[in-house]
């Protein structure tokens, strides 16, 4: 395998790369192309416009190794991450599918939830037009690396007019130090179908590792897809995620993305409105403290008329943490009657906390409604005094207000047990973040 590359870090990451074995030629070609791109690309620096506020150089100082054959966790270890509502669950441990920690029984007719490898033969006709076709990797080194490693992954297919009655949970569990994993998901929700997907990135133990994740989602005409993405990686971990969503005519896609963990995390969420009248909701919450950095780059691409998008991104930043939000709304020529709004709300809990927020509106149609707003602030002193004047001690008043700030995003998550879990995490973390 030729791994001559311009960048020593990528070279190191690709050292020992073995092309996943398989006889599916179109997939082998896509992997090979991705590998070629990974070799040609370089690790972004703050001189790259898209990475201007996010210095990922600490990532390049960690010697990542391919996953070793460590002992798999037991069901008892992962039980606490399981959402009881989600009767269907695929678990991946350090990037590898773990059937013993998964549950796929009892799915209704027309709903497929399967490891990708297993599905490739049986559902090739469904998979081939979409896999590695939506998440662009030509200029994205991490998406290219993920695609080059494409082997285990999740495949979700809800056939035309079928409704998946319960949420589907994908649990990506990291257990080993200095492991680089490449979680992958392809979800296809066909015309008129409905589904709720939970992607949960979490860890057992506090290790340094890298999760380089790519998710591709296709929402067919008139379909409804709710997508919860929880990033609660270990505190020293690195998380780089790409999520690309294609939304067809009159379809509804709602994203609820929560970032709590990782030393450095980045999410690129790209939603492409491919058909008229699509309705998109994008909720984001980053809650970070200490020396964490959480970066969300979103793109709402209104490529067709009559699209609607509501975006609410919130950051709660304590300690010396740094949150980045870049929200781009693109209204293509001819996408008349687009109705798109974006709100970026940021709460700083300490003097050293830092937020960079950047709305980016590119509008090439003249009959559209686009609004955006950004606010960065501290807890409101009048609200604090009001609560204290009713007997609440100052720390409790602060926590309540911080929690209330997050609640707007959390409460809209369509999985109650997860809302409850996240609310507890938020309360615990705000109490920590709040320390001077």
């Amino acid at each position, binding site marked *: 395998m030729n791994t001559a590359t311009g960048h020593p870090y990528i070279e190191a990451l690709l050292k020992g790369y073995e092309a996943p074995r398989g006889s599916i030629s179109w997939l082998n070609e896509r992997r090979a192309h991705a590998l070629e791109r990974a070799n040609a690309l370089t690790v972004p620096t703050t001189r790259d416009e898209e990475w201007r506020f996010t210095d990922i150089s600490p990532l390049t100082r960690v010697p990542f190794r391919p996953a070793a054959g460590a002992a798999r966790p037991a069901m008892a270890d992962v039980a606490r991450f399981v959402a009881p509502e989600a009767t269907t669950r695929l678990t991946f441990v350090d990037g590898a599918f773990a059937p013993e920690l998964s549950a796929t029984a009892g799915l209704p007719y027309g709903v497929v939830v399967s490891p990708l490898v297993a599905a490739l033969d049986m559902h090739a006709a469904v998979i081939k037009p979409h896999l590695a076709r939506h998440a662009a990797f030509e200029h994205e080194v991490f998406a290219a690396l993920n695609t080059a490693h494409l082997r285990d992954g999740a495949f979700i297919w809800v056939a035309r007019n079928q409704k998946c009655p319960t949420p589907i949970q994908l649990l990506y569990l990291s257990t080993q130090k200095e492991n680089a994993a490449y979680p992958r998901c392809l979800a296809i929700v066909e015309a008129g179908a409905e589904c709720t997907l939970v992607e949960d990135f979490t860890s057992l133990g506090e290790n340094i590792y890298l999760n380089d994740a790519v998710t591709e989602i296709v929402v067919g005409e008139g379909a409804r897809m709710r997508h919860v993405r929880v990033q609660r990686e270990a505190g020293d971990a690195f998380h780089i995620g790409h999520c690309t969503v294609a939304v067809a005519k009159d379809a509804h896609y709602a994203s609820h993305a929560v970032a709590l963990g990782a030393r450095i995390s980045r999410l690129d969420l790209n939603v492409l409105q491919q058909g008229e009248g699509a309705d998109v909701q994008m909720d984001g919450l980053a809650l970070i403290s200490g020396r964490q950095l959480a970066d969300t780059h979103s793109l709402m691409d209104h490529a067709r008329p009559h699209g609607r998008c509501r975006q609410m991104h919130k950051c709660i930043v304590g300690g010396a943490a740094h949150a980045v939000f870049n929200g781009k709304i693109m209204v293509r020529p001819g996408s008349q009657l687009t109705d798109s709004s974006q709100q970026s709300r940021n709460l700083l809990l300490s003097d050293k906390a830092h937020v960079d927020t950047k709305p980016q509106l590119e509008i090439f149609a003249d009959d559209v409604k686009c609004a955006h707003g950004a606010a960065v602030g501290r807890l409101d002193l009048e609200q604090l005094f*009001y609560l204290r*004047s009713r007997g*609440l001690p100052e720390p409790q008043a602060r926590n309540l207000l911080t929690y209330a700030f997050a609640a707007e995003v959390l409460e809209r998550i369509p999985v109650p047990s997860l809302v409850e879990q996240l609310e507890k995490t938020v309360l615990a973390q705000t109490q920590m973040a709040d320390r001077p």
Partner: protein
Amino acid sequence: MIRAGAEILLEVKGLRAKVAGVEILKGIDLTVRAGEVHAVMGPNGSGKSTFAKALAGHPAYEVSGGTAAYAGSDLFALAPEQRARAGLFLGFQYPVEIPGVSNSAFLRLAYNTVQAVRGKDELDPLEFDDYLREKMKLLDIDASFLDRAVNDGFSGGEKKRNEILQMALLEPRLAILDETDSGLDIDALRVVANGVNRLVKPDNAVVLVTHYQRMLNYIVPDYVHVMDGGRIVKTGGKALAEELEARGYDWVKEAA
């Protein structure tokens, strides 16, 4: 009700206070005994609201001189929440909106905090709900109040009713109501006044801060104080309020 020898709940002597470095209160003396209703009146800018907020401990109001004893202890040594737990209540002129915090959860939290200090049992959500609905009925408050966030999107009148509801729940020993009558229509005014009248008992007291006399048609004060220029310039009985209503504030200023 004036009773000689009743316990002194609040004793303010020579109180001075600054806002953003500017002295607003320039030496206030006021004694409030249990069972009494005091009205603090005065033109705009006379320092009435500053007086109320300084007593409740608003951090933007800096006490620069004088003393205040509350039920015998030094009021200014207490944090705002400690004052509240000791039974001091400020009804806000502009109640603050807190989106994301449900009104029912907030009311229960406030109630239980104060109950705990008084050595009484906290109520669980169901028990509290019963208790709360009873209080709401008395104050003619709609049940939808509970499902909404604290004061979020409330009309002016709804916010003031919510203040009175909090007062009714917390049963303060000393309630300071800052312009609670402003912005109320006559029905709401009656409801609010009823709420206040129900609170007044021999062992607690109310200080009404108001610009207009009309609230005093429903709540009869034992004392009326007129503030001007950061001082109390005249003190009298209910008749003084009527005289102010008829003659305005200018004659008091001149006489002072």
